């Protein structure tokens, strides 16, 4: 990563790229640009096409249509130098169980053409970073599943790649470990690496810069976490709790120009979609002034990404 320039650089770009197996469209048209230094999370229901999308972007699959470029060129034109800039952790990557943790890393280092000095430098560091030093000489079959996943991650990072593509790297790990691994991803980003990560843990996606939501082989939404929330609800959400909901209250709210929507989610509770919660709350209170409305609480609600994704996926599956 030392030779990387700091200029904004498109690492992966896809234009109308899709993949079909026979008559089945596994991935429909993808238009995408991933810049250097970005962490892009790919989420979606099981079987939605996340892994196929990753493989398409890595060049493992030839696009049935459209174009994919990585480092500014189609993957089939890669020389060894381009391949050496990629670190890939497949979803199914299993370690060699009859090798020790260190031997697994030595093999990975050899596969990437690292010499003895580079191996001596990097392996202890990675073992330490991933809290594997104590397990270095244990057979891979004798360590826990979480440790195995970390060893696989270490093997992916051993040659210090520019583009790191990780298919569910935190699957099966406990929350504490997931947190430490995401810290590591952020450090890698700080060092200039680009990360494309699929995950089933939606909360993790908030740690990234961008989220791609894939459903039925299509990118149904793309953007920052807040951006997606806005996309789903049309703005920020303010929740108002009152002892008694007056029909007049809803009329008043609907009459405000900064309110995009209002709905009663249960008796005494209203959700109001506004452009900006910070400015909308004082203006709402001002609008209620002089009226006999009993307001118990009014606050901005940070809706979970889970519900955002459920909403987005449901919308995408509705007929147009």
């Amino acid at each position, binding site marked *: 990563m030392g030779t990387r320039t700091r200029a904004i650089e498109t690492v992966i770009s896809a234009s109308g790229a899709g993949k079909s197996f026979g008559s089945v469209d596994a991935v429909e048209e993808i238009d995408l640009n991933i810049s250097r230094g970005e962490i892009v999370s790919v989420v979606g229901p099981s079987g939605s096409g996340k892994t196929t999308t990753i493989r398409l972007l*890595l*060049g*493992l*699959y*030839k696009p049935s249509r459209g174009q994919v470029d990585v480092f500014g060129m189609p*993957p*089939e034109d890669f020389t*060894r*130098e381009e*391949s*050496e800039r*990629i670190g*890939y952790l*497949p*979803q*199914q*990557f*299993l370690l*060699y169980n*009859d*090798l020790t943790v260190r*031997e697994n890393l*030595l*093999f990975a*280092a*050899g*596969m*990437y*053409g*690292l*010499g003895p000095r580079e191996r001596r430098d990097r392996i202890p560091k990675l073992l330490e970073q991933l809290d594997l030093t104590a397990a270095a000489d244990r*057979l891979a079959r004798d360590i826990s599943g979480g440790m195995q996943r970390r060893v696989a991650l270490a093997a992916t990072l051993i040659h210090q790649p520019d583009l790191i593509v990780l298919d569910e790297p935190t699957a099966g790990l406990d929350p504490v470990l997931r947190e430490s691994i995401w810290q590591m991803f952020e450090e890698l980003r700080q060092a200039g690496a680009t990360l494309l990560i699929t995950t089933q843990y939606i909360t993790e996606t908030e740690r990234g810069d961008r989220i791609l939501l894939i459903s039925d082989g299509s990118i149904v939404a793309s953007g920052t976490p807040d951006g997606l929330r806005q996309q789903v609800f049309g703005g920020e959400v303010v929740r108002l709790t009152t002892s008694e909901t007056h029909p007049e209250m809803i009329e008043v709210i609907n009459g405000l120009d900064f309110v995009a929507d209002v709905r009663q989610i249960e008796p005494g509770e209203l959700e109001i979609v506004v452009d900006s919660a910070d400015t909308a709350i004082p203006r709402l209170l001002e609008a209620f002034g002089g009226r006999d409305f009993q307001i118990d609480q009014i606050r901005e609600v940070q809706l979970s990404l889970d519900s955002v994704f459920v909403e987005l996926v449901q919308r995408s599956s509705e007929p147009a």
Partner: protein
Amino acid sequence: MRHLLNRLWRMILRPASFVGKDITQIRRQPQLIVALIIAPFLVLLLFGIGYEGRTPPVETVLVVPPESDLSADRADYEDDFVSPLVLVDVVTDEGPAIEALDGREIDLVVVFPENAFDTISAGEQAEITIYYNELVPFQRNWLEFYSSVQTAELNQIVQREVLEQGLAQSRSGLEELNQYPQELDAGLERLNTALAAGDAEQAQEELVTLRELTEDTRDAAGQSRLILLATARSVGAGGAPESPPIQSLEAIDRNLSEIETGLTNTSTAIANQGAEPQVVEPDLQFIAERRDAYATTAANLPAIPVDVLLAPFEADEENLAPTSPDFVDFYAPAVLALLIQHIAITLTALALVRERTGGTFELFRVAPISPREVLTGKYLSYFVIGAVLSGVLALVIVYGLGVPLLGNWLQMALIVGLVLAASLGIGFLISAVAGTETQAVQAAMILLLSAVFFSGFFLPLDNLITPVQLVAYILPVTYGISGLQEVMLRGNTSPDWTIIGPAAIALVTTTAASLILSLQFRRQ
């Protein structure tokens, strides 16, 4: 320049990473090493200890029908049965013998014909029926062979009887030849007595007796000459007419002919001039001279025994091979070749399949490693593993079992290396094509089975029809068996075809595996 060197260095490092990995993985599986080296060695050792190599006795019951008028005493026939046939009983009823054969209590039943003489005297061969109860094809072939040998032996017994009878006359003729001078002397003495008495009639009678004696002796000599000539013709002695016994018999015939002439002349002289001794003296002198010549020749005539005439040849075997290996020694090089092929194919057949099913294959496709580098790395690692295992096996065979190594180690190593290289190529081809480990193992087992049947391991290659022999020549073990036996047991250099064959297999299969792997590495 530095960049180029760095690239070259990495091209070495990448395949080398597989060598370290694969060797460590095999090293970590002691059970596999036991299964690959110690178990086959124990099998060979057990075979060596347990296999006697002798043919088990064929227990035989002889059925002599009562009508045949032959003896039913086992002792009368025991010496007439040739090994491995062992006469266990002689019965007169066929039924119980067949029942015993059905129950597999005995192996063979030989039934003499009821009316052999009638059949033979009608000019036909009498049939000896032989029953056996056997499923195994080889065993059936052997039983049929033993039966024909036994029948030949029985025929020889009859021939001996007949010939002995036939030669009795000839033998008496030979005795006659030897007695003739004395009988002639006695007859001449009686003739002289008659002449001394002036009894012409008695003298003529004596001369008739002497002519008959001489004529009979000529017949006996003629018969002996014919037998000798017939024997000479049957054994292919082209120069027999000039041989000393024939020459002697011809000289005897001439002597007897001249004696006959002398006797006739004597008779004529007596008839014309009367029974006076001085009248016949020249003729009797002539006869006496021929008689002495005859006696000298007849005394040196050889008498040929019946057994020699029945079996004029006996074998004197001499093996020109430099060794006469026992079964273990003979099969050890073949076992070594078979094990090398089996070990190499079994290990490599799984090599790529495991990477593919384990998920690492996908990683290789993205990583800066080419299919050729993957194959080269794996090829090298398994070659090293195979070479070490083969070396250990070879040492055990030569120094542990004492199997001779008449050729040199380098020749042996060359064949082992080529068989190994060819087997690795086949293993990688299987591994490149197989979708699952089960498929790879099945393919390896089919090749092992093919090796047992088609490599010349147990069955000579010449027993196979030509198209099937082609199967033999796509198996590295075929070349390994021939080459190793030639080098180890004959001390020769390995024939060219045993070098070219496996080298070609290695080249073709490894190239094919590399191409298939390259296709699999391509974008899908």
